[in-house]
């Protein structure tokens, strides 16, 4: 699950929870998931260790990321 997916899911959860026709049990589960996603996403932001790499394709068509000096 990527940061973007976490945040996207979080937004969907908030949207769902803002609807009135949700039963309490489901709402509670959504809320718990929302909190979990919020934690994960916040932690990812805090890491702040983005890298600059180069996409390299091997002869067998597989991909690897190699570090770049930048």
């Amino acid at each position, binding site marked *: 699950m*990527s*940061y*973007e997916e976490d*945040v*996207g899911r*979080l*937004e969907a*959860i*908030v949207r769902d*929870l*803002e609807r*009135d026709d949700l039963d*309490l049990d489901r*709402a509670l589960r959504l*809320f718990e998931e*929302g*909190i979990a996603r*919020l934690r994960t*996403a*916040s932690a*990812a*932001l805090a*890491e*702040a*260790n*983005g*890298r*600059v*790499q*180069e*996409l390299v*394709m091997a002869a067998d*068509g597989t*991909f690897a*990321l190699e570090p*770049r000096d*930048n």
Partner: protein
Amino acid sequence: MARSSARDELGGAFDDDVLFDASSNTAFVDMTPGASPESPLAVHDLTSAAKDLVEGAFPPLWVRGEVSDFKAHRNGHWYFALRDAQAQVRCVVWSSQAKRLPAPPDDGMQVVALGQMTVWPVRGDLQFSVRLLEADGEGLWRKALERTRLRLEADGLLDPSRKRALPAAPRTIAVITSADGAALHDIITVARRRSPAVNIVVVPAKVQGEGAPESLVAALDRVARWADCDVLIIGRGGGSREDLWAFNDERVARALAQCPVPTISAVGHETDISICDLVADLRAATPSAAAEAAVPSITEQRARLRALGRQLAATAQRRQQRVTARLETTQRRMVTAAQRVTERRQSRLSNGAARLESLSPLATLARGFAVARTAEGATLSEVGAFAAGQRFELWMRDGVVDAEAIGTRARPGASGNGSASGEDSA
């Protein structure tokens, strides 16, 4: 000068004098090629010599004229005439050169052509072999762009509904550009500044010159197959129209349209609009602007997360308030219903009491009547129940009178058989 050059081209080791002697002295047969009926030249030798001679006499030249009778041959060569009011010259663009030109010219187009004056030996025709062709007002470039644009449009690739939204919080950004260009440096600098959390994956490609379109298509293909990124930036820094031309290549545009993640195109400067710009999900004016558009600043992202957290808490609060309100309402309704039931009962009770009251003999006493009763509590309601000297009680509104019957008689005006006896006893 020209004649001696021609003789040189024909490979003759003769000079003017020999030629002169050959025409005046029939006994001497000059076997130099072309010098006598006995030594005729092949036509091909003649035209080939003319070709060499003409090519030697003219350096490559720019010529202005109007294009007419344009024909693109199956084998890729282009043929046309360049002319003005006084003259015309046949022109050819060999396929190897034609491929480098943006588009074929149209008849009637004013052009300047860089070419080599020559002779086509097969026909013996004078021919201008064109290497570069520029139409007035950059007509060929515009024509080429327009042709590509129309083809892409016909396939729906320029449809605004195809445009995808950029991810709000990308973690990994792929960048297709020259590995050593200023564009890459700008993109990395801006992206890092905006968010140190973002990953940048460079996919190097040749962005100008021979093979650039193929290199860009290959890079796009790699990104599509790898696909482990959230957004793609493709572009390069500023340059001449020719330098930027690979980004107008139809193959590149089509590969870009196939990209599985949202794309940002940043080709050249503000004013340069490329075909890639039209196909990409977003056109950025410069590579720096592309990085800015691709990477939300980390402060923005933090704010966004905080806002989402608040929204989440608010929904929980709202839901709780709703539940509480519902409970309260229900409670109120229950109380009201219970009260109503009690009230109904009470009113029934008091109705009953009133009716009971009205039925009570005590009520009759209240209105001023008295009731005669025996000491045992039996009601004495008929004259016949009395005997003279009998003791009885008279129940009044406010108490009891002990009484004794003196006698009985009928009440005046009362009918019935009891009256006579009443009269008798009274």
